[in-house]
């Protein structure tokens, strides 16, 4: 029982990280039809920026250091994403191949730069004592970072749903995901919504970068790319453009990975996720929250 609880909560934690990356990816694709391969770079740069900021503070102020790294990660993620959209993506809106090339290029260049600046070895993160401790739940000693990641992702989901359901820009984004040309034909400048969605996606990816550092206890240049692959799978399973679909798919993917990697063999969970993706595409090509055709 305790193993099941531990795997379930660890799987939810992993799913929470996937969700934070996938939510932005999904909205960016849904609204702008941009397949953003640079999203993992937002994650990586934000994680390193948070770490650098944390290292600059007094060694014993561990909570302050972590909170500052969180804020820096979010801000850097948003800035990086906004600059990417305005400088690189905007001139290429009608050119999908160009978008893919430029975002793949940016991702590769970013990883190379981070490796050049900080090396390719994982860097250990200084965390407050509470975050290195565990909490007893259903007989299992659950690492507190898992609980924290889940709680923050749930808060982000609630904020995103509030934004989408209750604000005018949210309304524009939801409409734009359905029919961008008609939104413009109502006199609405969709360009601002594009930039806003990129910034929100960057913020969430930056947050994921700092939270993943706490989840794993380290940062390394390749983690953003590794997580991006599963985040893309989450986006497709959840339904392109749907935040709720991404949340559900992220939970499923995280749980499937954790349970099968433990009970079957290491790597089986990752393979099973690919099979799950294939199954969803066959049965419901629009994803869980999309149409069935």
């Amino acid at each position, binding site marked *: 029982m305790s193993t099941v609880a531990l795997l379930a909560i660890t799987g939810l934690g992993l799913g929470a990280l996937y969700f934070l990356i996938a939510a932005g990816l999904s909205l960016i694709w849904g609204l702008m039809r941009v397949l953003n391969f640079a999203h993992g770079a937002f994650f990586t740069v934000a994680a390193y920026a948070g770490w650098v900021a944390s290292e600059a503070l007094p060694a014993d102020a561990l909570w302050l250091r972590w909170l500052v790294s969180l804020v820096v990660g979010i801000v850097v993620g948003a800035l990086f994403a906004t600059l990417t959209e305005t400088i690189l993506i905007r001139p290429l809106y009608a050119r999908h191949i160009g978008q893919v090339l430029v975002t793949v290029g940016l991702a590769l260049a970013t990883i190379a730069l981070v490796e050049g600046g900080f090396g390719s070895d994982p860097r250990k993160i200084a965390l407050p004592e509470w975050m290195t401790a565990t909490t007893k739940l259903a007989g299992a000693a659950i690492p507190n970072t898992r609980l924290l990641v889940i709680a923050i992702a749930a808060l982000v989901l609630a904020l995103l749903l509030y934004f989408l359901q209750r604000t005018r820009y949210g309304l524009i984004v939801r409409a734009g995901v359905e*029919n961008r*040309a*008609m*939104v413009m*034909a*109502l006199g609405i400048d969709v360009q601002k919504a594009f930039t806003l969605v990129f910034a929100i996606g960057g913020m969430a990816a930056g947050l994921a970068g700092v939270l993943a550092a706490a989840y794993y206890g380290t940062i390394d240049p390749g983690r953003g790319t590794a997580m991006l692959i599963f985040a893309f799978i989450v986006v497709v399973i959840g339904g392109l453009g749907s935040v709720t679909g991404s949340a559900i798919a992220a939970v499923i993917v995280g749980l499937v990975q954790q349970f099968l990697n433990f009970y079957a063999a290491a790597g089986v969970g990752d393979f099973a996720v690919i099979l799950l993706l294939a199954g969803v595409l066959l049965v419901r090509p629009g994803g869980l929250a999309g149409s069935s055709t």
Partner: protein
Amino acid sequence: MNDGVLLDVRNLDVFIGESHILQNVSFQVREGGITGLLGRNGVGKTTTLRGILGLVRRTGSVTLAGDELTALDVPQVVRRGVGYVPEDRDVFGGLTVDENLRLAERPGSPLRYELVYDLFPELRTRGAQRAGTLSGGQQQMVALARALLNADNRILLIDEPTKGLAPLVVGLVTNALKRAAEVATILLVEQNLAVAHKLVRDVIVLDQGQVGFIGNVEQLMGDPALARKHLGVAHG
């Protein structure tokens, strides 16, 4: 600006891919009432509306009350007072009826909710319903309501509003268009000649991407040979 002319289209050319869809199209729309943009299938009527709005790349000149529109992007054109009801309605199916209307509200424009609900009382009662679950006729009401909502719309470009609708709903839409014409000028694309005859005053007929006829609706409909030449059918 010529007296009474609200919309002036001059030498409008539109290419889509290799196809030269509109060729040197020029016409004027007088302020007030409904002007019909007629013609057989595929002659470029929808493209003309999309060209005026800027939804397709075009050359030439389009002025609204003397203001040149061709250098503006689509939202800027719309904010100058151009409402648009597309051929396929294009309501946002995942949004509720109320959300569709709220989205159409333009900051700074007086809103005509009273008129909209007076014309289409169903929209008030179905406000919380997702637009994608409405019938075709109800979706057309939402599409027309979105264009009518902003009181600063000077011209409404309406593309085949009766297409695919049941006769009863066609009557409702026809009456709504008559009322709408009291508050805004309308450029109407309509394949249903009976509806067009009832509603329009001036007509522009397109023929293979060019203007084939400009005049009064009675001139066109009253002359079977002329109607057959341009529309492929004589309206009785």
